[in-house]
């Protein structure tokens, strides 16, 4: 089903340039802050799906991806965007929380 790349994560030969690493780390920090802020007010479905998928995807990334091959996380990208948007939208004056439907329904 997949190639094993676990040991590649400990190999210095496959590490990209420091600029690229810095870019990825900045992106990761931005996403964590945007997703984490006002977490409990965000739709339950998105929170549950991310909570279940993110650890699973991280394990799959460690086992089956090259170091920094973040395209592996395409599967959780829609969830990240939807969870980060309410915070990023505030930068241009959009109030997501005021316009939110009653999103108490969770995963089917």
């Amino acid at each position, binding site marked *: 089903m997949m190639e094993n790349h676990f040991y590649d994560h400990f190999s210095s030969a496959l590490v990209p340039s420091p600029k690229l690493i810095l870019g990825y780390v900045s992106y990761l920090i931005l996403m964590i802050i945007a997703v984490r802020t006002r977490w409990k007010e965000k739709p339950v*479905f998105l929170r*549950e799906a991310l909570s279940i998928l993110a650890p699973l995807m991280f394990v799959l990334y460690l086992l089956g991806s090259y170091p920094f091959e*973040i395209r592996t*996380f395409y*599967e959780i*990208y829609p969830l990240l965007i939807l969870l980060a948007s309410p915070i990023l939208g505030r930068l241009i004056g959009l109030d*997501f929380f005021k316009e939110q439907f009653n999103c108490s329904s969770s995963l*089917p």
Partner: protein
Amino acid sequence: MSRDKLFKAFHNLYWPIIIFITLLVCKFYLNGLQWEEPRLALSQLMDGTAYKPFVYRILVPTITKIAILVFPLPATLYASILIFAFLLGFIVCIRSFSSIFWKKAEINDFVGALSIPMLTPFMLTNRHVYDFSTLFLFSAGLMLMAQKKMGLFSYSLHTCLLKQRDNVVFISYFFVLFQAEFQEAYILEALILSSNYLHKHSRLNHVEIF
């Protein structure tokens, strides 16, 4: 111009702007795409000689193959059109997904537009012909799950989960049955639903890692 007028103007021109930006992103993406990458070249994917597990990612190669049979043009042209179509399809999908949770059109416009620049870091190191099809199918699957409109897939999944109560057997069954790329998205969804089922039937109501 007031903020509301600006949002309204953006809403009116939304799709032309999105199509234009998607074309630009796609051009950037295709410039760095290696069509003849060793082990998973487009030609190898099309004739089934690519290495495992890449050979199972058949959606784009199969559509390309059929399109060439109907109207012979270069395979890379068809694959490029499909990459563009799946990227655009993803944006349509994420905007629609957003409308499940937020009612205002300007918010949904913003989510759709934001999904393009935020995607850039994902494209920097590796690019493959099947990336955007995965992104589109998984977004569509999640959206259908949120709307509880999973059709046959949902029905069979729930039947298995509720009646067999054996997730290991169920997941193995899916791994055996679904090897093609367009079904890989559903394997992960099966994992989400089965994990959720386990949590709901244990003492934890919600799993929260944050």
